C-alpha cells in the first residue's frame, strides 16, 4: 500500500531526499547572503544561480534511482503516475504563460511557479491515490 513506504528503496529515497533538502537550505541561505552583500553580475550571477539547483538535481536523481530500485511494481507505478500528473501540469502552465507573453502580456509569473506547480500536483496525485486506493477495514 502506498502509505506503507517501508521498502528498502523507499527508505533510501527518503534519507537521500532529506539530506539533499538540508543541503539545499544551506546553499540557498549561503548564496542569498553572498548575493545581497556583493551584488554579483554576469557569469558570476549565473554560476551562483545554478548552485541551489544542484541539490534539486540530486532529488530528481534520487527519484530516478528509487524508480529503478523499487521492487514493488504497484508503488513504482503510483510514483510514476504522480510524476506524470506533475509533468502535465508544468507543460500546460508553461504553454499558457508562453502564449500570454506572445500575445502581449507584459507581466511575469512569480519565480518557481512551474516548479511549485510540479510538486503540488505530484503531492495532490499521491493524496488522491492514497484516498481512492484505501482498502476496506476488513481487508
Amino acid at each position, binding site marked *: 500500500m502506498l502509505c506503507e513506504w517501508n521498502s528498502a528503496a523507499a527508505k533510501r529515497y527518503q534519507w537521500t531526499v532529506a539530506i539533499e533538502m538540508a543541503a539545499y537550505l544551506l546553499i540557498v541561505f549561503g548564496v542569498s547572503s553572498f548575493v545581497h552583500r556583493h551584488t554579483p553580475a554576469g557569469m558570476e550571477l549565473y554560476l551562483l544561480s545554478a548552485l*541551489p539547483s544542484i541539490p534539486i538535481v540530486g532529488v530528481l536523481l534520487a527519484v530516478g534511482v528509487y524508480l529503478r530500485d523499487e521492487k514493488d511494481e504497484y508503488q513504482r507505478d503510483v510514483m510514476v503516475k504522480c510524476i506524470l500528473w506533475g509533468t502535465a501540469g508544468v507543460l500546460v502552465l508553461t504553454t499558457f504563460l508562453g502564449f500570454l507573453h506572445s500575445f502581449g502580456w507584459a507581466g511575469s509569473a512569480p519565480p518557481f511557479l512551474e516548479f511549485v506547480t510540479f510538486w503540488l500536483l505530484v503531492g495532490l496525485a499521491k493524496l488522491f491515490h492514497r484516498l481512492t486506493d484505501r482498502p476496506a477495514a476488513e481487508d
Partner: protein
Amino acid sequence: MLSPVARKYRKTAFSVLASYFVLFPIANYVAVKMHPAGVALWMLAAAPMLPIVGVVFLLGRYLRQEKDGYKRDLTVRCLLWGAAGAVMVNLFSGYLRIFGWKGQLFPFTEFFVFALCMLAAKLSYRAANRVPADE
C-alpha cells in the same frame, strides 16, 4: 514496430496537433488586431493551449492502454527526463530573477527543453538498446 495502441496514439495526436496550426494563427491574428487585455487576453492565450492539453491527455491514455511493458517503460523514462529538464530550467531562471537578473527567458523555453530532453533520452535509449542485425 509500432503497437496498435501506439499507432492509434500517433494518428490521433497528429490530428489534434493539426488543430493547433488553425487555432494559433487565429488567436495570434486576434491578439495583433485587437490588443486584448485582462480576462480576454487570458482566454485567448488558453485557446492554442487546448491541443497541447489534448496531446497530454492522449499520452496518458496511451500509457494506460499500451500492453507492451517495455515500450511503456521507455516512454515513461523519456517523459521523466523531459520533466527533469523543464523543472531544472525553471528553477535556474527563478534563482536568476531572485538574485537580481532583469531579463526573461524566451516564451516556451521550458516546453522546448522538455521536448529536447525527451528526444535526447529517446535517441540515447534507442542507441543503447540496438540489437545486432543477425538477432
